[in-house]
């Protein structure tokens, strides 16, 4: 079972992506999409050592909503900072200690951090216990770490890792 269908979640996602790509709902395209959704995970099994499991799909939906809102806010924040006075910015590097363990959750967190207000993730420590974040304009580093941990890391931990 594990070898025939290594990533049950990936199959419908790939099928959906294929249907969007060809922009049609014909039966033939659905069959082709399902075939691709099955064969691609089997062929790329070596690159996906971890099994992807979503423990709380509803929370994922809510998280995506918050995330989209934050992206819009982030754009306004960064636009204001760029148009303001660049000399006054106080950029800083912050080490965020990680509670999430799985590689998938860490990469999700890093991506989310890069897309949200004033921060870009720049490095994961080799032991995967710290994430180095570059903030564009921040004076209170402790508050930043607390926000990242409560707003993004806690939901991701619940979604991707068993409690």
């Amino acid at each position, binding site marked *: 079972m594990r070898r025939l269908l290594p990533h049950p979640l990936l199959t419908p996602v790939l099928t959906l992506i294929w249907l969007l*790509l060809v922009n049609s709902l014909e039966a033939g395209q659905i069959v082709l999409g399902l075939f691709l959704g099955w064969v691609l995970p089997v062929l790329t099994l070596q690159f996906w050592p971890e099994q992807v499991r979503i423990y709380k799909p509803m929370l994922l939906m809510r998280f995506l909503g918050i995330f989209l809102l934050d*992206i819009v806010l982030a754009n306004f924040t960064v636009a204001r900072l*760029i148009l303001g006075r660049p000399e006054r910015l106080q*950029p800083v*590097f912050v080490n965020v200690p990680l509670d999430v363990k799985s590689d998938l959750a860490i990469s999700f967190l890093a991506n989310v951090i*890069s*897309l949200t207000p004033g921060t870009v*993730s720049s*490095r994961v420590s080799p032991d995967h216990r710290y994430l180095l974040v570059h903030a564009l304009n921040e004076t209170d580093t402790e508050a930043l770490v607390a926000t990242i941990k409560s707003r993004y890391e806690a939901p991701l931990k619940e979604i991707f890792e068993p409690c």
Partner: protein
Amino acid sequence: MLEFLISLLIVTGAVFAFIGSLGLARLKDFYTRLHGPTKATTLGVGCLLIASALHFSIIEQSASLHEVLVTLFLFMTAPVSAHMLAKAALHLGLKSLAKLPDATMANRSMSPRHKQTRQ
């Protein structure tokens, strides 16, 4: 009315994309410059894509969902490339306005790949 909305979205998108690129010119060091292209452009491209989807779905009467895919790919690639650029910059120890963290410097000198390039 709809055309007005679409034009508004296109103009907003273009303005945000422009501000993102302007950041490259105005900001002072490599790390802060990374912020412009990763963020200000997501909303810029987002607005343009919504406008495109509206135009082709309603005015041209053919459901167009390619925009969803563009958004998906953009959200996957923009942060990853920013991360790789920042990591490479840290590895090379580029000049930074922010104080470089000590732990990073320690990791850098310990990393085996770095030692090899030194030899």
